[in-house]
């Protein structure tokens, strides 16, 4: 089963663990609901939609409220440290958590106690902590945008806010930044860099790029990176190889965006609604191409 770990922007939302479902525009977990807007709820919604399209079983969520004060994240870190070692997930995706290197290391140590090692995917705050910890290589997939890629490429930066100026966050420099991130061991086994052009790479270099359909407005929309991470996580859970899953996810996310006809004011739920149709189309193309 796929597990997704993250936070919701409501301080009062208690630690909630269990199977996740999507009803209308809301994520449900342990009888509690949270509106899908951006962040981890958007990632969850995209993963649920992808799982449904693939006929997969439900996914497992670990959620807690945190508005940036870090208390909720630390409570969740503590819970994971105590419980993950006994769990049996095939893949775990870590998302919006307050970056905290010591807690990150404890969680990673708990994962190493698992009898079978899961595929590890990280994005957002947990990816920042993974890079800062010097243990990025323990992960199978990071899904940074170009600003976050510059942070991964800058071996001295503790956060994207402190990325050095000479490391330009220019999309055209993405191949150089990818190379630099691997050279300093600050990248996961695979990197899926999201941007005007999406890049899939590993330490040997860029393996594939996806740049169509192109919807410029998606760059301004909050949550479009979260949906990409949710789709790729669910595809990996289905048994697809990471590199294939990343390319399919990049294409499906773009196509879902295209079908939503977005403007920079569009909210991400509009894209999430289009995921099943877009995914079906991409997977059919893939099957046709192999015939």
């Amino acid at each position: 089963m796929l597990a997704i770990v993250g936070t919701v922007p409501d301080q009062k939302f208690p630690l909630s663990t269990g199977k996740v479902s999507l009803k209308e525009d809301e994520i449900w977990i342990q009888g509690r609901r949270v509106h899908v807007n951006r962040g981890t709820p958007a990632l969850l919604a995209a993963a649920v939609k992808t799982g449904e399209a693939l006929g997969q079983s439900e996914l497992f969520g670990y959620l807690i409220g945190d508005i940036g004060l870090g208390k909720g994240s630390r409570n969740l870190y503590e819970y994971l440290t105590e419980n993950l070692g006994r769990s049996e997930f095939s893949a775990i995706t870590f998302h919006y958590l307050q970056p905290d290197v010591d807690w990150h290391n404890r969680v990673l140590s708990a994962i190493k106690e698992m009898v079978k090692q899961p595929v590890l995917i990280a994005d957002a705050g947990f990816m920042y902590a993974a890079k800062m910890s010097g243990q990025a290589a323990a992960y199978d997939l990071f899904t940074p945008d170009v600003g976050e890629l510059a942070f991964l490429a800058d071996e001295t930066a503790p956060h994207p806010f402190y990325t050095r100026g000479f490391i330009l966050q220019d999309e055209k420099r993405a191949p150089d930044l990818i190379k630099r991130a691997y050279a300093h061991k600050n990248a996961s086994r695979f990197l899926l860099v999201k941007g005007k052009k999406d890049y899939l790479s590993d330490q040997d270099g860029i393996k594939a790029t996806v740049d169509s359909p192109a919807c410029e407005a998606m760059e301004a929309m909050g949550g479009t990176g979260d949906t990409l991470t949710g789709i790729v996580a669910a595809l990996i859970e289905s048994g697809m190889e990471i590199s294939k899953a990343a390319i399919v996810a990049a294409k499906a996310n773009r196509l879902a965006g295209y079908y939503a006809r977005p403007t920079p004011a569009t909210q991400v739920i509009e894209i999430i609604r289009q995921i099943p149709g877009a995914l079906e189309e991409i997977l059919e193309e893939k099957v046709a191409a192999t015939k």
Partner: protein
Amino acid sequence: MSFLGFLKPKKREKLVESDQDRGILVFEHTSEVIRAESVLKASGWKIRVMGPPPEIQSGCDLVIEFPLIEELNILRTLQKVGASPLEIVPVSSPLLRPVDLFQIKDFDQYLMVRAANMKLTVEKKNLNIVNISGGGCPDVPYLAQEMVGKSLSKAPNPREIGHTLCGYALQLAYEEMTRKCSP
């Protein structure tokens, strides 16, 4: 190892403490360090007073090490009691400075400003904030929830309700957007 030994949970590795996510608050006078220390400790932050690293040329003989990610929240706490630091730097590399490059993208009816990993977009005709994207700290979805749909002048300021470095980056994007949209 017994036949079923491989099914047993593995032993936990020894953890090495890291200072990669820590920052340093530099003050002009030792008295300010003492004041800031008591305020931050009373607020529950994990901090410690120490000697400054050699790269830091300004300030007094003592600095405070703090969780860097929570810079915005800590800065606000110190400002409230009139104990603002002279300088804030990351422990990992004290010569690093916050990103000061902005990317501007014109979408015709909309304008987007990016600072570091944060993007803020407004509708030009009414200056309403229509989207906030990027970032990875948990205050980003919260800031988006509180700011999107409001006008640039009436939305809460990220400096006031944000808590992390992502919140700080959004503040820079917000200030740049305000500059761009001023008559």
